[in-house]
């Protein structure tokens, strides 16, 4: 804000206030809607409060200590990391491939069709996807196992087996979000200036060289953005996994968002849930920053 107490002519003051006219409304709105919950969560993370079992009691860092020493929380975080590590690279690789393939396709009709289709999984309601997955991955009666059976693979217990369930959830996540990455990167590729592309095509036939020196720099911002977006999104994943099996079997697919929901709404332990969310938030911020830092490490 402007320095207080410094006598100023009205004009410059108004000018300095200009950005705040633009930013103001959104800030006020978000502060009123977002500040209270955030403050609440912070406040209660330091209290011991189980709904229905008496009033909140200040307890210092004990919730944080409980969370960090409980295998439940740590395992949920690790599971979420595993989920991230197994989905992000695949989404990226497939996304780039699709974007490149689209870029190279001369057939406008095919191009149009695929672009349209790519929008579809993004638009689909995640809870709907979860229901569909329940149906399709049923080990006795689902169409996925039927398809596998036809190509000679014996049925996999997707819903009842820990590994199978994790696999099912990973496959679904990839299906749902690769199109997003593909679209973002496709848009990035479209910004490669035509003349540069033609010039380099004349100079070298090497696909790999062309990719590395021309396309990659233009792709990089898109890759960074979609990685950050996907990281945050994946950590927050809830609806889809919940509507499949609520994190089951056991807690095989219980990501951090699901674990916190259970603590908050099945155990009614508001204090612990708040502490765990704060910890998760810190982790998310650190992760997001690292992704950006890593991808732009050779830039200031």
């Amino acid at each position, binding site marked *: 804000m402007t320095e207080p107490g410094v006598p100023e002519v009205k004009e410059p003051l108004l000018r300095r206030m200009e950005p705040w006219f633009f930013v103001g409304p959104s800030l006020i709105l978000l502060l009123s809607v977002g500040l209270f919950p955030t403050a609440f969560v912070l406040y209660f993370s330091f209290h011991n409060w189980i*709904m229905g079992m008496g009033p909140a009691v200040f307890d210092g860092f004990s919730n944080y200590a409980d969370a960090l020493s409980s295998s*439940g929380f740590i395992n949920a975080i690790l599971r979420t990391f595993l989920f991230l590590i197994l989905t992000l690279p695949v989404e990226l690789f497939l996304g780039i491939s699709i974007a490149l393939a689209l870029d190279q396709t001369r057939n406008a009709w095919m191009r149009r069709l695929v672009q349209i289709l790519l929008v579809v999984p993004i638009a689909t309601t995640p809870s709907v996807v979860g229901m569909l997955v329940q149906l399709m991955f049923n080990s*006795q009666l689902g169409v996925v196992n039927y398809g596998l059976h036809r190509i000679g693979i014996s049925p996999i217990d997707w*819903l009842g087996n820990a590994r199978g369930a994790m696999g099912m959830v990973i496959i679904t996540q990839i299906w749902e979000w690769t199109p997003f990455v593909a679209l973002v990167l496709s848009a990035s590729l479209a910004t490669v200036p035509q003349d540069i592309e033609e010039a380099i095509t004349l100079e070298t036939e090497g696909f790999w060289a062309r990719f590395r020196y021309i396309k990659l720099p233009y792709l990089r911002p898109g890759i960074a953005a979609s990685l950050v977006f996907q990281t945050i999104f994946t950590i927050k994943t809830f609806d889809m996994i919940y509507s499949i099996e*609520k994190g*089951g079997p*056991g807690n095989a697919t219980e990501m951090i968002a699901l674990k916190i929901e259970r603590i908050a709404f*099945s155990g009614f332990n508001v204090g612990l849930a708040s502490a765990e969310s704060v910890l998760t938030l810190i982790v998310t911020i650190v992760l997001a920053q690292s992704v950006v830092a890593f991808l732009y490490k050779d830039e200031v």
Partner: protein
Amino acid sequence: MRLPMLSLSVDQATVEGNVMKPSVKSILLGSACAAAVLGFAPSARAWTLQQAAAPFKGETVTVVGLDRPSYKAAQKLTPEFEKETGIHVKWVIYPYGNTLKAETLNFVSHSGQFDAILSDVVWPVDFAKANWVTPVKDFMDDKAILDPNIDLKDFFKVWRQGFTIKGQLVGLPFDSYSGLLYYNKKILKDHGFSGPPKTWNELLTKYAPKLYDPSKHLYPYVLQSARGETQTADGFTRFLWPWGGRYFNAAQKKITLDSPDAIKGEEFRQKLTKYMPPGFLADNHPQVVQLLAQGQVAMITEWSAFYPTLAASRIGPDLGVTVEPKGPKGRFAAFGGFAYMVSAQVPKKMQDATWLFIQWLTSKSMAKPLIENGAVVARISADTNPALQAKFPYLKPMVETWEHGSVSDWRPQIACYPYFSEIVSDFGSKVEAGDYTVPVGMKKLSAKLQSYMNSTDCWSSVNIPGK
């Protein structure tokens, strides 16, 4: 009030002269009439719902319900109540998994969203301890709204006890279940069995091997093991009590799930899992019901409330139903169900109107029509009615189970039950999946529960039925 006798006696006196003096007789008669007017008139006028509801005409009572047959039946019959009382009833239906969530949030925020509170048999300690619901006695003391035919003793003892916390009854039972053994008569017959097993041991050693044929998609039994309350109740607790296992010793404040009996019970369950169809770890009620209906499984142990669903399914006339098998230490069938309570956070007027509704819904006279529409209730008079028993074969085993094979605290009645159950469900699933051996798993579970009960001082809230 006119006294016609007076004139008569005067006439008689003047004619014959040997009757009592008219003045005394008329005084006696007069006193008798007066006494009748003053003393006996109230008993001549019976309590009616319509009259009792008069002060509440036009109010709207919000009732929590589930998407289950009993509530559908209740909703169907609700217009009768509305017509007679002029009170409007608004049903709010939740999936089971969200009911406690919605009600707890409602209470904590004092939002007064619900008037009639639905309570699972494991929630009353919670609700009562926090004073979120008004005890039944408060309404029973008010003659204006108490139905003299309420007859609380007509509720099965085990149900009354289930909702009596520290000596106070807090709810009226509705939608009450017992666990039953459902079986496919034809499949059993085809494999040489004349009837269902009477003990768990029989099921495992005699029936299971003969009925296990994965190549033909045939399995003897499947246990609903999905995480959450299903795992805790249907999965875990079912194999605890019949072997002598108990959750805790309240007097000693000690969890006893690592006792040899408890371990024996859960080990039996592990042996049984070898005969179950793949994917059972994810199976919830709909799935196992579907498996029995489609003929892929010969037997299941499920809630009595599923009878109408199964009877109407593919299995049709082949459906058999009986009491759950006995364990080495007795029969302790699954015990579960609900009751209606009145929210203590709404104005007294609303509370009274709500009381009228739940009293009506759970009354003796409504029991039969409800049962006929697919509901399950805990009224002795209705459930032992021979005509109804003939029409609904599940009633007899259910009554038998409630009278001889159930305990009210089959699942612990403690204030911290929600999270307690989550812990049990966690470890129960892991043991069933084979992540831990039974002894190791039970020991870890006991340790975790012990520390949780101690740290939250949940021991002080333990409710022992009948005390």
